[in-house]
């Protein structure tokens, strides 16, 4: 058993579009430990979802994926072919999607869809599968589970459906779960419940969890480590404390500036915003992707690609031409202003 349940090195995803090649994900590297929660944050279209689909090998047919390394539990899953990958999917690696309303098949009962995952991967009987389904539905907080099993997706609310999705991913007892914005489509009141549920289950079953979200409030509550993405690249990575307390990359700083933090943001103070729009990722890309929106941009930012570098603390790294000292000073200045 490897310590790291998932290791991703230099993952890229390219999608051909009519006007050229869309470089949706460019050299993303990270790892997830057993029992660890990694949050990937970033704005819409920054490549978060495609990164997760690339790990599961569920990309659209026309997208191409390359990586230096893609290992699950110490085993290469980059070039193992569809059959062996299908044996891993839903078995030791599960995925929860953004849209609970459409992610369940309308034609089959909940029990059918739950049990099918277990029957596919494990040598169990129907009775055993039914027991497991009831157990997990109760685990995800669904009451009268055996009645719910007989129901169809259209008879359940969005929150319930997402709970069913979570239970479905847990059927085979995976060691890694990828949750792609699992609460975006839900009511605000349900969002927190689902996230806390995920965090609880992750601790209880000691799974690795990749939580993809653009809700920084959520990240602050559940993340062990945080990876910030911008325009297809990782721009900062570290523990939740490191990233939230000492955001180093200017984009991360700008992002954190946009949300009120209790105890930090003064009452009545203006919240920040990042001017400009996300650059197009079609064609050749050079230099810092954030340069034209960055308040500290210099000539050298656009000259060449910017490398990842270490921040002050171990395990905290970021992508910028500026040294950690300068970045820290910038962050300070912003707080005073």
């Amino acid at each position, binding site marked *: 058993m490897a310590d790291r349940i998932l290791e991703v090195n230099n993952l890229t995803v390219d999608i051909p579009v009519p006007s050229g090649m869309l470089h949706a994900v460019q050299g993303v590297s990270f790892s997830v430990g057993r029992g660890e929660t990694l949050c990937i944050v970033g704005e819409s279209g920054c490549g978060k979802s495609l990164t997760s689909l690339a790990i599961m090998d*569920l990309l659209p047919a026309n997208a191409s994926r390359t990586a230096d390394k893609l290992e699950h539990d110490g085993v290469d899953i980059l070039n193992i072919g569809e059959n062996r990958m299908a044996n891993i999917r*839903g078995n030791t690696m599960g995925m929860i999607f953004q849209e609970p309303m459409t992610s369940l098949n309308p*034609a089959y009962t909940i029990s059918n869809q739950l049990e099918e995952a277990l029957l*596919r991967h494990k040598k169990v009987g129907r009775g055993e599968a039914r027991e497991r389904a009831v157990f997990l539905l109760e685990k995800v907080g669904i009451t009268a589970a055996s009645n719910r099993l007989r129901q169809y997706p259209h008879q359940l609310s969005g929150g319930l459906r997402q709970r069913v999705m979570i239970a479905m991913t847990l059927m085979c007892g995976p060691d890694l779960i990828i949750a792609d914005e699992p609460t975006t489509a839900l009511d605000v009141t349900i969002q927190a419940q689902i996230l806390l549920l995920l965090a609880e289950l992750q601790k209880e079953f000691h799974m690795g969890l990749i939580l993809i979200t653009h809700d920084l409030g959520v990240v602050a509550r559940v993340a062990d480590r945080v990876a910030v993405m911008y325009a297809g690249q990782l721009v900062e990575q570290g523990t939740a404390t490191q990233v939230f307390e000492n955001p180093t990359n200017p984009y991360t700083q700008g992002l954190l500036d946009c949300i009120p933090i209790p105890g930090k943001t003064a009452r009545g103070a203006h919240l920040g915003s990042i001017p400009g729009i996300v650059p197009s990722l079609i064609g050749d890309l050079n230099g810092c992707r954030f340069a034209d929106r960055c308040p500290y941009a210099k000539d050298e930012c656009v000259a060449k690609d910017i490398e990842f570098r270490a921040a002050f603390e171990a395990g905290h790294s970021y992508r910028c031409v500026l040294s950690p000292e300068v970045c820290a000073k910038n962050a300070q200045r912003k707080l005073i202003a």
Partner: protein
Amino acid sequence: MFIYACKRFGVAVLVAITVSLLSFSLIYLSGDPAMALAGESATSEDIENIRRVYGYDQPIMVQYVDWLSRVVQGDFGRSHYLKREVAEVIFERLPTTMLLGACALGFAILLSIPLGVLAAIRPNTIIDRLALTLAVVGQALPSFWFALILIFWLGITWRLLPITGTASWQNFIMPAVALGYYVTPAIMRLTRAGMLEVLSSDYIRTARAKGLKPATVLFKHALRNAIIPVVSLAAVQFGFMLGGSIVIETIFAINGLGFLAWETIQRGDLPTMQAIVLVLACFYIVLTFLADMLNAFLDPRIRVA
């Protein structure tokens, strides 16, 4: 489900009543029936007599109710031309037409659904193009002409199949192909479109994320949802084929309902025509009802509608 079935059944009955009204009024659409019966040399007294004997002097609503109550008991009246009970003639011919229709629909489904699925899982490939070509040709080719081509090659040039009659199962091959090929394009294109839409849906991604085998994803999760509109279409097409078999039965000299209809129209045999229209329409209604029930079985969301 029961409530849904009752509702659909109610609608079916209403449609059947409407159709019976229309087919009854066929008699009056072609002029005064008493005059037609009496012939050209009849005196006005003869016509009056016929009118009284056949009840044409009664108010139309009375005649209709009278006619309907007899039809419900299986009495379609007597054919003036065949000098036989209409019901007898129809039930003699109906099985042949039903068999032909079922064979044609079977052929159409066996050809079009696999092709539609293949075209959808390999869109814009050579398979897709071939299927599209087949569809365009099928749509453009009049069925009587296709039937003649079949007869020419398979029946006369190569002598593979008998060209007329209903003596053996081989007699049904060419008519079924000719009749079924005409409805193939619609079913195939609808299957392809449905599959394409379903295959890109979120629940297919979920199924794949569960690691299910491609065949399970395709047939259990995708096809069942994609097939729902196809069921409705196939039911309508089956009804259409029963009607469309008039041409095919005439070409292949098959002694079915279609052939009878053609004969009847030529002779102006009104009671028989009325009965044929009514029987075919009722089949349509029954098929639509059955398709609704099948769809409700396939898609649980329909059951509550």
